[in-house]
C-alpha cells in the first residue's frame, strides 16, 4: 500500500504503540491528550479506530466488564504488523522530506 497515514491516524496508532499492553479507549484517549496535547472527542476516536481496523492496521476485541465502568465491557486494541509498517512508511516519508530543510528560529516546542 502506497498510502500514507493522516496526522490523527498516526497519533492514534502511536498512542497504541506507546501503551503496548492492549489498551482500551480510556487510556488511548489519555495518552493522546497527554502526548499530543490536543483534545480528542470520543466519537472522533472511535471513528478513526474503526477506520484503522478496517484498513487492517489494528485488531480489536471485546474484553470483560469492570465495575468502575458501570458493568460495561471494554474494546481493546492491538497494533498489527501492517500498522507498524504504515507508521514507519509515514515516518520515512517525513524524514525524507525534512532533509535539507531548516527553519529559521528553530523549533520552539
Amino acid at each position: 500500500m502506497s498510502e500514507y497515514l493522516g496526522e490523527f491516524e498516526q497519533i492514534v496508532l502511536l498512542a497504541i504503540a506507546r501503551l503496548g499492553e492492549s489498551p482500551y479507549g480510556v487510556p488511548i484517549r489519555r495518552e493522546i491528550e497527554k502526548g499530543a496535547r490536543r483534545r480528542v472527542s470520543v466519537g472522533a476516536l472511535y471513528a478513526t479506530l474503526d477506520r484503522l481496523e478496517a484498513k487492517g492496521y489494528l485488531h480489536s476485541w471485546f474484553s470483560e466488564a469492570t465495575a468502575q465502568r458501570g458493568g460495561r465491557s471494554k474494546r481493546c486494541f492491538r497494533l498489527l504488523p501492517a500498522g507498524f509498517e504504515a507508521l514507519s512508511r509515514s515516518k520515512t516519508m517525513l524524514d525524507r522530506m525534512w532533509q535539507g530543510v531548516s527553519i529559521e528560529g528553530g523549533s520552539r516546542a
Partner: protein
Amino acid sequence: MPDRPPRLAERLLHRLVPGKDGDVIAGDLAEAWAERGGGRLWYWLEVLTCLRVRLSPNRRVLPDLGRDLHYALRVIRRNPGYAVAAMLCLALGIGVNSSVFSFLDGMYFRLLPVPQADRVVAFDRDGRTPSFWRDYLSIRDGIHAFSGIAATAGRGTFMDVERANFGIVTETVSANYADVLRVKPALGRWFRPSDELPGAEPVVVIGDGIWETWFGRDPRVLGRNVRIEMQWYRIVGVAPEEFQGVSAPIRVDAWVPLTTYPIARAQLADPHGPGPTVSLVGRLAARQTVERAAAEIAVIDARLRQAHPRETLYATPLHVRLFRGIPSPAARRVTRSIAILLTAIAGIVLLIACVNVANLLLSRAAVRRREMALRRSLGASRGRLLRQGMAESVILALGGAALGIGFGYATDRALALWMPPSIPLAVLRGIHLQMNWRVAAITAALALVCAVLFSLAPALEGSPVELVSALKSDAPTSRGRRLGQRDLYVIAQVALSLVLLVATGLLLRALQRIERIDPGFATDHRLYVRLFAPDPDFTPEAGTRLFTRLLDEARALPGVRGATLSFDVLGFSDSACVSPSRGPSDGHASINVVEPNYFQLMRIPIVQGSNFSPYTQPVLDTPKAIAAGSPPLDIIVNQTLARRQWPGRDPIGKVLWLGCPDGDPQIAARVIGVARDSKYIALDEDPTPLFYASRRQLWWNGYFALILHTAGDPAALYAPLIQLARTGGPNLRTYELGTFDDVIQSSLWRVRWQARLLGAFGLLALALSVVGLYGVVAYSVAQRTREIGVRMALGAQRIDVQWMVLARGLRLTAAGIAAGLALSASATRFLRGFLYGIDPLDPTAFAAAALAWLFIAMLASYIPARRAARVDPAISLRYE
C-alpha cells in the same frame, strides 16, 4: 461516583451506536465522567460526536449481514418444506404481477424495438389522424428538429398467398419509413424512394408472422408475389420478428408503399385533393429535444390551419411525444379499464400470497419460540433477531421472485393465448408481452416489499417479556393473542379471495346474460363477405349492376339456399339525420340498405305493413335526384324508431325527412312497414332506432355484405364466395369474410376474456387462501393435542372433537365471508362498465361465491378435524 451521566444522552448514544460498541463507548465515557467528576454539557457533546462513528463507512454492518444471510440459509436448508411452500405462494403472486406489469409496460413504457428508440416521436391530434398526405409532403423536409419524418396509415385488408386468403393489417407507408425508424430488414430490403414513384412496381415487406405461417421461414420468399386489395405485390423484404409496426396495439403483418395502395392511389389521383390521411412518426435530429420539436411543430401546425381554414382535422392541435407503448391516447383509453382491472386483481392475489407467507412464518415463529427466547437470554438484542428474521424473509422473497419470473413467463403465454385473434377486436393483440429489465426491477421491488411486510408479522408478535415461560415449556402461553393475529390473517384472506370470487361470478352472470341475448336475426348456416365498390371506380349504376350480378351468381352456387345483400352487418352500420318534417332535424337513426328478401332470409319479421317490392324500380342514384321530384323513397322502420317518432300511432304511410340540414338536401321517405328490433352494433346495445331502405331505390356509399344462407357447413363456402367476389374485378374491395355465428362469438370476446381471466385469478386466490385456512386449523389442532386428549379422557366423543375443530374453521370462514361480502359490495361498483347491465350487487353472484367458500372451508377444515378426532388420549397425555 458523583451523580449518574444524563440518561437521555446515554439513550441517544445507544441509538447512535447500537449494540456492543455503544456499550463500550458508554463505558469509556462513564470512566471519564467519574474521573472529571461530572459535566453534563461535556457528556452531551461527547455523545453528539458519536454521530461520526455512526456515519463512518467502516461500521461493520456488512459482515453482520453476511452472517445473517448465512444463518438464514442454514435455517431454510434445515426446513426446506416450509421454505418451498412460502416461495411457491410468493411465486404465484409475484408471477401474476410481473405479467400484469409487462402488460402495463407494453401499454405505457416500452420503446420501439429499433436503434435509439428514445429519439423516435409520435404525432397525435387527440386520437385523430394527424395529417393528410399532401401536407405531409409539404412539411416533412422543412422541420429542423427532425432528421426525418415518415408517414404511415394502418389498414385492415386481406392477402392472397397462392390460393389462401386471410385477413391482415398493413401499414401503407412513405418510402423513408424504415430509414426514419432505422429498422433493418431480417431478409431482403425495405423500400427505396423509387418504390413510391408513379408507375413503380408494387412491392411489399412482410412481417415475421406471415413469413412463418405462409412461407415456413423460407428465405426464397423474396421475389414471390402476393395479392393485396386485388393487386399483385412482389415481396422484397421480411421485417425482423420483434418489429410490429408503429400502429400499436395492433400488430402489423405487412408494409407497402402508400402510393401503390389501390384506395390511396384513387385518392391521390385528384391533384387538388388532400390525399389520404396519414399518421406520422419522426426521429429527432442530433442535439434536438422533444420540447424543441414540439415548439417547431406548433408553428407548422398553425401554418397548416391558416392554409386550410375549413379543414376540421386541423382544428385539434398537433402534439408530439416520445413513442412509448401505445402512442395514441385514444387507444390507451380503450385498454385502460382492462389494465386497471388486471392491476387490481393481481394486487389482491399478491396480498393474499403475502398474508399466506406471513401466516407460515408465524407458525414457524411459534415453533421457534424457544430458540428465539434462548438467543435473547444469551444477549441477542431484539433488533438483531428482527434483522435475522428479515434476512430469512428476503431470501424467501428473492427465491419467490425468481420462481415468479418463471411463472410470469407462463402467465404471459397464457394471457397472450387468451387474447382475441380477429382483426377488428385486436385491441390487445399487439401488446407484446415480454419480460424486460423494467418488469424484472418492479418484480424485485415487489418481492422486497413483500419480504418486509411479512417479516414484520412475527416481529410484531414476538413479545419481549415472556422469555422465562417460553424457555420453561412447550406449552403455548399466550395462545389467545397469537392465534388472534393468525386468525385475522385468515379472515383477511377469505375476504379478499371472496371479492375475486364475487367479481368472477358477476362476470359469468354478465356473460350468461349476454349469451342469452337474442340478436333478433338468424345466425346459423349464414356467412357473409363484405364488399366495397368505391366511388371513383364505380358509379351507382355500375355498382348496383355488379351487386345484382354477384347476388344472382351467389344464389346459383351449390349448397346455397338463398342470398341477399345488406349494408350493415353486426358491428358495422351507418346513420342519418331524420325528422318528422322538413327543416332542422331532431335526431339520428341508423340506416341499413338491403335487398328486399333480406327480412325473409335473416328471419326478421315485418310486424306491420309490407316489405319492399321485389320488382325492380329505377335506381335513384343520388339524394339530389330524389329531391328533384322522384317518387318518394319507401322505408321500413324498426319498432324503436316507430315508437320514438309516432308514439301510440300507426306509422304506416307517415313521412320521415332524411338528411342533415347542412349536408345534402333532405328527402322525403314514406314508411311502408315496421320490422322487429334486432341488434346492430353489439349484442349488449340498447334498442337502437333504425330504418331500412331498398337497394333498388338507394345507393349508399358502395358498401354491401353479400350474405349466403347455406344448406350445410357455411365454412365450406368460404372459397367459392371469395372466388365469386374476385369476379368483380380489381377495383371491388373485399373485406371481412365470416359466418354470423363467428360474429356473435367475437362480439362476446371481451366479457368472455374478462370472465376467464378473473376466474383464473379468482381460483388462484382461492387456492392460496384455502392453504392458509388449512394451515391455521391444522396448526391449532397440533397445538391443542393435549387439550383434546384431556377432553377425550374426560369423555368427549370423537364427533364433539371433530365438531370443535370444524367449528373453528367455519367461524373464521364466516367472519371472512362477512367481511368479504361487505368489501365486495363496495368494490364491485368499479366493475359496472364490464357487467352489461347486471347489478353490481347481484344477489346470485354474491350468494354463490359465499356458498362456494363455505363449502371449500368445510373441506379444508375437515382433514384436520379428522386428525383431531383420532387423537389417542393415552399417547397425547403421556408427556404431561
